[in-house]
């Protein structure tokens, strides 16, 4: 294979010390996790390979900068957009609604 390694293919690279800090999932991370599992259970995605494929196609900067569940979110979004389960308009509209809601809550 002549293709360059994807950003996910890190085995054998060099790196810094392992950060041993324990980290509990934030609630939204549990929600993303549950969403992915339910999307699989309900047949919205066919298997986890589909999701991993989406993660492996992330731009290297995205892969490095996004947190674990943020990568899942991006990958599931692109998978469901591609399959037609959701539309870009619906997604954009919902993102705007959440942003407005968060702005109101943060100022109240």
């Amino acid at each position, binding site marked *: 294979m002549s293709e360059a390694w994807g950003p996910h293919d890190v085995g054998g690279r060099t790196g810094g010390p392992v950060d041993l800090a324990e980290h509990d999932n934030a609630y939204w991370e549990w929600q993303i996790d549950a969403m992915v599992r339910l999307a699989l259970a309900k047949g919205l995605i066919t298997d986890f390979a589909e999701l*991993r494929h989406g993660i492996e196609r992330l731009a290297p900067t995205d892969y490095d900068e996004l947190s674990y569940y943020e990568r899942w979110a991006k990958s599931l979004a692109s998978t469901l957009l591609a399959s037609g389960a*959701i539309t870009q308009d619906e997604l954009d509209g919902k993102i705007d609604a959440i942003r407005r809601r968060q702005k109101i809550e943060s100022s109240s």
Partner: protein
Amino acid sequence: MTDNEHEHDHARTFQPDHVEPTSEAARLGLALRELLIEAGHYSVDEEQAMIAAMQGASPENGAKIVAHAWTNDDYKARLLDDGANAIRELGFDLEPYEFTVMENTKTVHNVIVCTLCSCYPRSLLGMSPAWYKSSNYRARIVREPRAVLAEFGVNLSDGVEVRVHDSTAELRYMVLPERPTGTDGWSQEQLAALVTRDSLIGTQRELGGDK
């Protein structure tokens, strides 16, 4: 957020004390979640049940399997021969993947990783620790396992061989740690209490005992 708003918007984050994230990607995830719930693909109740199930899995499951193997040679042989079936034998629910249990001995130390993503035996160990999913662990544990293990406080002598097992979507691993000395006659419950998450991953080698 008022209670009124909360009642009208069922897809909203349930508990008000859970702060919503504000990063773009996380917001994308929340938007997706709300869309799927509103379209009826799944319900908030199903989400809650799924989260509870995920939070319910813990390394105690793996510890019970280890304690069973430590006290039953026939079971241990089956576990090492065909991990998936031996684990199901004890009533644990494994997704349909192959499962291999690797035994630590005086001269062999095993450690698991998923270099490509984050495959992990969640039904037996619960949520994977953040470091398991980190690039540094995934990159280096296959390149310089002894150095990485030393960061976890595992200092292996030259006489101990290190075997690193790279998990896949279809094949998961768990380490069978060595039974500590001084635990003859202990009950399975007592033994299981010695087994830690990290010892099942292989980033811990010595377990307590004697007392």
